[in-house]
């Protein structure tokens, strides 16, 4: 307890509410409110309707939702594989090698995602690998962007891993592959789950690189929200945004349930 006087405490809480509510709670509430209304010309929205949602879960928007889900799922799985592999391989290297590998895999975080999009577009619009115009270029860019986060969280977990378990398993005669599958990966499972959730959420909301290279038949949800609001249909955009948030939250919730199960094992 930092402030002991009653008035002081109330003043601090009031300050907190004044700062927190308009800045953080209000935006999400406003989007939610807008998604259920037809007009907003005044202090409060008017014309309550659920019509935007019927539009948001069919046709183009539904397609965008499945596109986003497929992209996020594929990209997360690929990123998790590559990131985990790199984290495990880095742990086996010496100090110098580990540093190089960590730096290499952190690079996509530092490079602006628009630039990642541009780079992927430039590189795969020309032979030998012609991916431009296919869905794979979107998935590829997402994978590159989220691999860094997967690598970061898995390698943090690998660092915390107690080497006694694997040494015990190895001394009892387990092969390296057996140690990996039966000892290391189960121990890493909680952080793998967390990383999967993180990758999924990031990929679901990815807009910058996607704007650079999405083909017309593979338009993820954030791009759909942008095109809707750009055309001036803010309310439809809000409904789609709520769908995006709800889907992300549901998947995160599911992933965190898996995690609690795994950490009790």
């Amino acid at each position: 307890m930092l402030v002991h006087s009653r008035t002081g405490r109330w003043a601090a809480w009031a300050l907190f509410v004044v700062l927190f509510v308009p800045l953080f709670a209000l935006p999400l509430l406003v989007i939610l409110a807008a998604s259920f209304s037809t007009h907003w010309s005044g202090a409060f929205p008017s014309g309550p309707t659920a019509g935007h949602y019927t539009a948001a879960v069919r046709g183009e928007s539904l397609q965008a939702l499945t596109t986003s889900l497929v992209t996020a799922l594929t990209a997360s799985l690929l990123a998790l594989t590559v990131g985990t592999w790199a984290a495990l391989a880095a742990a086996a290297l010496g100090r110098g090698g580990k540093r190089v590998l960590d730096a290499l895999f952190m690079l996509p975080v530092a490079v602006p995602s628009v630039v990642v999009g541009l780079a992927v577009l430039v590189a795969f619009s020309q032979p030998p690998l012609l991916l431009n115009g296919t869905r794979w270029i979107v998935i590829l860019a997402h994978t590159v962007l989220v691999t860094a986060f997967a690598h970061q969280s898995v390698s943090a977990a690998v660092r915390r891993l107690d080497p006694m378990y694997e040494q015990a398993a190895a001394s009892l005669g387990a092969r390296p592959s057996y140690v990996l599958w039966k000892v290391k990966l189960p121990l890493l499972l909680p952080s793998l789950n967390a990383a999967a959730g993180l990758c999924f959420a990031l990929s679901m909301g990815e807009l910058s690189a996607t704007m650079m290279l999405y083909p017309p038949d593979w338009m993820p949800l954030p791009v759909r929200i942008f095109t809707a609001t750009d055309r001036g249909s803010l309310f439809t955009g809000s409904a789609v945004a709520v769908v995006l948030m709800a889907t992300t939250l549901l998947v995160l919730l599911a992933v965190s349930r898996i995690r609690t199960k795994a950490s009790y094992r």
Partner: protein
Amino acid sequence: MASADAVPAGGGGGVRTASTGAGARGGTTSAGGTRSADPRTDGAPPAPSDAPVPHADAAAPRGPRSGAGAAPGSRPGPPAGAPVRAVPRWVWALPPVGVLALFFLYPLALVVQQSLSPDEGGTSVEPYAEVFASEAFREALSTTVWLAVGATLGCLVLGFVLALVIAFIPFPGGRAVAKFIDVFLSFPSFLITLALLFVYGTVGMANGLWTDVTGAAEGPFHFLTTPWGVLLAEITYFTPFVMRPLLAAFSQLDTAQLEVASSLGARPARIVRQVILPEALPALAAGGSLVLVMCLNEFGIVLFTGAKGVTTLPMLVYSEAILASDYPAACVVAVVNIAISVGLYSLYRVVSRRVGA
């Protein structure tokens, strides 16, 4: 290399003959045993692989044979070749690095190459000269930098105050607020701009309230399409990125220190300055530099603002490449953006490593 690695394992096999356990492989008695166990385990990357496996298969049979030569009495145990490190460890690092190189480093290299090759052909620094000379680029550069610096400062101050209240002046629901911050982080940034359109837009909430209360024809809030709107959105979106490390740091702070300081007569302002702030500095430095890099790279917020007056470097990359189809210029801007961001990010890594955050 495989044979050089096999030698100590063969030595281990020699030790093994002394112990009678037929199936016991390695790691039995001596220090050599544990040493051979150690590299075996931590060298094991994910098993399903395509490239290095043939290597392992080719080299694996060689190991047990030499082991058998050293210890003729031992049976050929079922997992042949297990104690032998046939493949050097760095080979396992090659597949992920190769994937990264193909899908990330090679495209980046192409961007650099394209930035040096103007439309007329050949290789020259002419695109750079052109872009650097253009007014739009210089304006975008300065806008990007001051927006990022301003947003970072705002996030630091706001995040520090909010985290301070959550951590040290606890109130019912504080945990829920901390949870909410985590959830907030998993949403895309452009949602904030979308929401601000409803709150501060020309016919939005704030202006509506103003006209209702004062009866004026229109409200005073028109900053949304100016850099200030972007600044507000960035501060809103990135403050949680500062709060999270701060809350983690505060949770490790011993509250007894605060009690002692206050019982000695220190006022809250002094406790914050002399006890809490020094404790929070590493987290502030790490969070602040992360936010700085993310603000430099922010695109969604600027795009959704839809303001022609606000152009940042990522926005310039997008408009040059997609709207104007001027790829060399886009690549030049991209290279500049990469240089700034990667430079700052490496600084962040150094800072956060030094302070141990």
